[in-house]
C-alpha cells in the first residue's frame, strides 16, 4: 500500500457505498484527485452488512423523487463502472396485512404517479403468482415495484472499488481519521494520526460514526447511531422472487442469487447503543415473521446473524450537502436506505461539489433542514 499523500483536491472520510460512489462520480466528472480514508476494513460498515434491497417509491414526494431517480441510475451503473454490480430488477413488494396499511399503499401509489415512479397495486391472483409460497390468508394487499430489486452489496462494493482505483482514486482502509484542521472559517485539512492531508473539499460519510467524526471538527450533526440486525439462512432453490417489505412487522427480506434468504426485523423498544453484538429477541422475531409469512421455510436453518449500524436522523431521512457551519465541508449521512439511494446521492453530490448546482431532488435533504424546522415527513420506511 502506498503512503498517505499530503494533499488532495477531495478527501472523503468513510469508504462505504456513499464514499465510494461519490469518489467514482467525482472521477466521472473529471475530478480524480480524490483520497478516501476509512477506519475499518473494506465493507466493514453498513455497506457490507445490509439487506441490499432497492426501491424507488416511498410515501413522501421528497423521498420518492430522490429514490426514484436513484433507481433509474441503478440500471446502467454496471456500464458506467465497467464492472458488474449485479443489480437485478426482480421486483419489490410491500405487503399490507391490515386495512390501515392497505390504505397507506393506495396513498403511496398516488404519490408515485405524481412523481413519475412506476408502482402498481396487485390483485390477489397477482400476489399468488408473484409469491406462490406466501401465506395468502395474511396478505390484504400489496404494492409492487416492477423495477425495484436487489443490488448485492458484495458485487456493488467490489465494482465501485475497482472502478475508483482504475480512475486514480486512492483508497486507504484501516486508516482512521483522528481530527480536522480548520482555518479562515473553512475546512483545511484532515488528520490521520501524525499525517495531515490538505484538501480543497472534505466530505464526511462515516455512516453510524458521522456525529462522532463531525465532533472531531467541533461540529454538531443531527441524528444518532442506531443498530439493526440481519440474518441469512441456508440456501434453497428459488422460493421468493422479489424483495419484500412487511411494514407492520418491521421486517424486510429477499432471497439472494446464492439461494440464501436474507433479511431482518426490528423490535421496537430497544435502547439505542453502539454495539455490533447480536441479540436473541431479534433473531426470534425475524424467524417468526418469516415462518408465519412463508410456512414452507420452517425447517430451513439459520446460517448466520449479524448487526450493522446506521446514522439515523430525527426525521429518518438522509442528509446531503454542504455543512452549514463550515465552508468546504460536505456531508452524506443519515442513510437508512443508503444502498437504494447511493447512485443518486453520488451523482448529485458530485455535481454540487464540482459545479455548485444543487439538484432540486437533493435540496430537501439539506444538512441544515433540522435547524430550519424543515423536516421531511415520510411514513413508509421499514427500519425504525
Amino acid at each position, binding site marked *: 500500500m502506498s503512503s498517505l499523500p499530503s494533499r488532495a483536491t477531495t478527501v472523503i472520510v468513510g469508504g462505504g457505498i456513499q464514499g465510494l460512489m461519490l469518489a467514482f462520480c467525482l472521477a466521472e466528472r473529471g475530478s480524480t484527485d480524490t483520497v478516501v480514508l476509512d477506519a475499518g476494513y473494506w465493507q466493514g460498515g453498513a455497506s457490507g452488512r445490509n439487506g441490499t434491497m432497492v426501491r424507488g417509491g416511498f410515501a413522501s414526494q421528497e423521498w420518492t423523487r430522490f429514490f426514484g431517480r436513484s433507481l433509474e441510475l441503478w440500471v446502467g451503473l*454496471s456500464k458506467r463502472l465497467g464492472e458488474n454490480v449485479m443489480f437485478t430488477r426482480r421486483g419489490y413488494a410491500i405487503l399490507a396485512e391490515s386495512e390501515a396499511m392497505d390504505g397507506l399503499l393506495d396513498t403511496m401509489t398516488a404519490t408515485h404517479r405524481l412523481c413519475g415512479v412506476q408502482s402498481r397495486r396487485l390483485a390477489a391472483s397477482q400476489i399468488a403468482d408473484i409469491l406462490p409460497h406466501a401465506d395468502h390468508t395474511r396478505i390484504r394487499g400489496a404494492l409492487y415495484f416492477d423495477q425495484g430489486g436487489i443490488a448485492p452489496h458484495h458485487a456493488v462494493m467490489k465494482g465501485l472499488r475497482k472502478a475508483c482505483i482504475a480512475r486514480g482514486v486512492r483508497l486507504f482502509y484501516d486508516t482512521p481519521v483522528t481530527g480536522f484542521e480548520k482555518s479562515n472559517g473553512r475546512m483545511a485539512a484532515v488528520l490521520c494520526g501524525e499525517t495531515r492531508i490538505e484538501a480543497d473539499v472534505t466530505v464526511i460519510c462515516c455512516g453510524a460514526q458521522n456525529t462522532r467524526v463531525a465532533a472531531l471538527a467541533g461540529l454538531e450533526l443531527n441524528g444518532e447511531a442506531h443498530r439493526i440486525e440481519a440474518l441469512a439462512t441456508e440456501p434453497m*432453490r428459488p422460493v421468493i422472487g422479489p424483495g419484500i417489505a412487511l411494514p407492520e412487522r418491521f421486517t424486510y427480506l429477499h432471497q439472494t442469487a446464492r*439461494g440464501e434468504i436474507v433479511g431482518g426485523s426490528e423490535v421496537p423498544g430497544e435502547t439505542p447503543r453502539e454495539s455490533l453484538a447480536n441479540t436473541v429477541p431479534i433473531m426470534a*422475531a425475524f424467524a417468526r415473521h418469516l415462518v408465519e409469512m412463508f410456512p414452507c421455510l420452517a*425447517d430451513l436453518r439459520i446460517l448466520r446473524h449479524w448487526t450493522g449500524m446506521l446514522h439515523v436522523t430525527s426525521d429518518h431521512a438522509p442528509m446531503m450537502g454542504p455543512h452549514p457551519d463550515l465552508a468546504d465541508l460536505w456531508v452524506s449521512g443519515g442513510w437508512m436506505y443508503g444502498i437504494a439511494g447511493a447512485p443518486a446521492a453520488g451523482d448529485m453530490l458530485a455535481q454540487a461539489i464540482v459545479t455548485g448546482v444543487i439538484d432540486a431532488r437533493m435540496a430537501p435533504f439539506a444538512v441544515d433542514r433540522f435547524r430550519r424546522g424543515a423536516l421531511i415527513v415520510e411514513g413508509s420506511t421499514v427500519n425504525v
Partner: protein
Amino acid sequence: MKRLAHATQRAGTFLFDGRTVPFHLGDTPAAALHAQAIRTLARSRKFHRPRGLSGSFVAGHLCGVDGSPHVRLDRLAAAQGMRVTTENVWPCGAFDLLGSARLLPRRWLRAGFEHSPLMPSGTARFEPWERFMRFMAGEAPVHAGNRRAIPQGRRMTSDVVVVGGGPAGREAANAAAAQGRSVALVTRGHVAGAKAAAWGAVLPALHDGVTVLTAHDACGLYDRGRHLLCAPHDAASSATIVAAGEVILATGRRSAPPLVAGADLPGVMDAETALTLAHRHAVAPGERVAVVGNGMEDTLAARLERLGVTVVACQPVERLERIVGWSAVSGIDAGGHIACDCVVHAGPWRSDRRLAFMAGADGDLRVLGGPLPAMVRLAGAAQEADEPVGHGAALDRRALACPCMDVTVDELLDLIAAGETHVEVLKRLTGCGMGPCQGIPCWDNLAHIVAHATGREPSGIGHPTYRPPGAGLTLAQAAGLQDLVPLS
C-alpha cells in the same frame, strides 16, 4: 464397507434417492449409507464435486429428509421408510448432469460464479443470467406443503452450564454439582461422553444433580455469556436458552483436515467420525484405511484395529502430499503412493473457538473477540494451544481451503499476491467460510495461507467474525424463542 463383529441387528430400510438401504439398530442414515459403500452424500456448491461424511465439512453431510432441506445425516436416527434425497443435483442424485461443472477450468468459477468472466455485465444482460445462477446456487428444492408448528422454546436457569460431555466437561459439572450448585451440561453426542467412549476411555459417571441436554448444539452465546442458545438436532423439538451464572466451555479439540489436494473427497474423515462409525455403528470407515496425524496417529491406528478395521498405513501428516481419487479416495501420496479407500486424520488438533469468541464479541467498526467475560471460562483441552494446519512440504495450490464453497488455495494465493491480506476482505471476495460450517475449519486454513504467503505468524492473522448460530437451529426453532430473552 463391512460391518464389524460387534454390529447390532438389522432394523429396517429407508430410501436414498429411490434406492433401498438397510439400516441397523442405532444407525444414523450416514452410517447405514457408509455400510453400503454409498459415500457421496452431497455435492459441492460450484464444481459439484462429491462430498461425504468427513466430520469437517458439514456441507457433505446434508441431504433432504422427508421434505426437510439440509438435514445432517450424521445427527439423525435412521427410521423405517425415511426418504433421503441428494441436494444440489440436477436432474437427480443418481445422474447429476451438473457434475460436469467439475470439468470447467477452476478460474471460471471463482467466488461463487459471481465474479466469473462467464457472467455478462449490464442490468438487462445480467438478469437472465441471474435466474440461471439462482437455480444453480440454491441447493435444496422447496416443498410447498411443508409446514411445522413453531416449537415453543424453553428457558432454563442454572448456576452453571457446561458445554461438552468429555472428561473435562464431566469433571467441571461433577465438581459444581458436588458443591450443591445446579448444573446443566450440553453435549452434541447422543449420550454425554460419546467421543471419549469411541476412543475406549472410561469416564467417571455424571453426578445425579446434573441435567444433561444430549444431541444439542450449543450454537450461540449472547449478552456476554448470560444466554447460551442450545438447539436440538431434531427439528421437531424446541430450542433452549440456558441462563446460567457461570459458563464452562469444555469443547475439547478436533482434528483439522489436512490442507492437501483431495482432502475434500468422500472417504477422508476426522478421527472422531471414523471412531464413531467403527465403535458406535460397527461400520468400517474403509476396507483399507490410511491414518495420518500429529503424534496421535499410532494410537488411533491401534484403536481402529482393535475395533476390527484394517489399517494399511500410518504416517505423520507432514508427509502427506496429496490424497488421490476421482469420486472417492483411492490412495495417498506420502513419500510413495499407498492404495487405500479411506484416510483418517488424527491431528493437528485445534479447538473450536466460536463460543469463546461470541462471549466477548463486540465492537463498533469491527466485531472483535476481546477477553472472556468473568462468568465464562474454558476447561480441559479447549484451553490448549492450536497445532499448525497440516500439509506436506509445499502448500498445494489445488487444495481446497473451503470445500463447502469450493474455494481453492490458488484463488486465495492470487488475491494475497494482489495485496489482499485482510481475512474479512478475503472472505468477502471468495465466500471462504460462508457455507454451513461457518468458518470451521476454513478460516484456520485461510489464516494459515495468509501467514504462509506473507511470512507472518498465523496467530497474528486472526479470523473473520464467527457469527451465531452457524446452521445450528431452524427458523421454526428460532421463532419459538420469542419472549425468552429480554430486549437489550
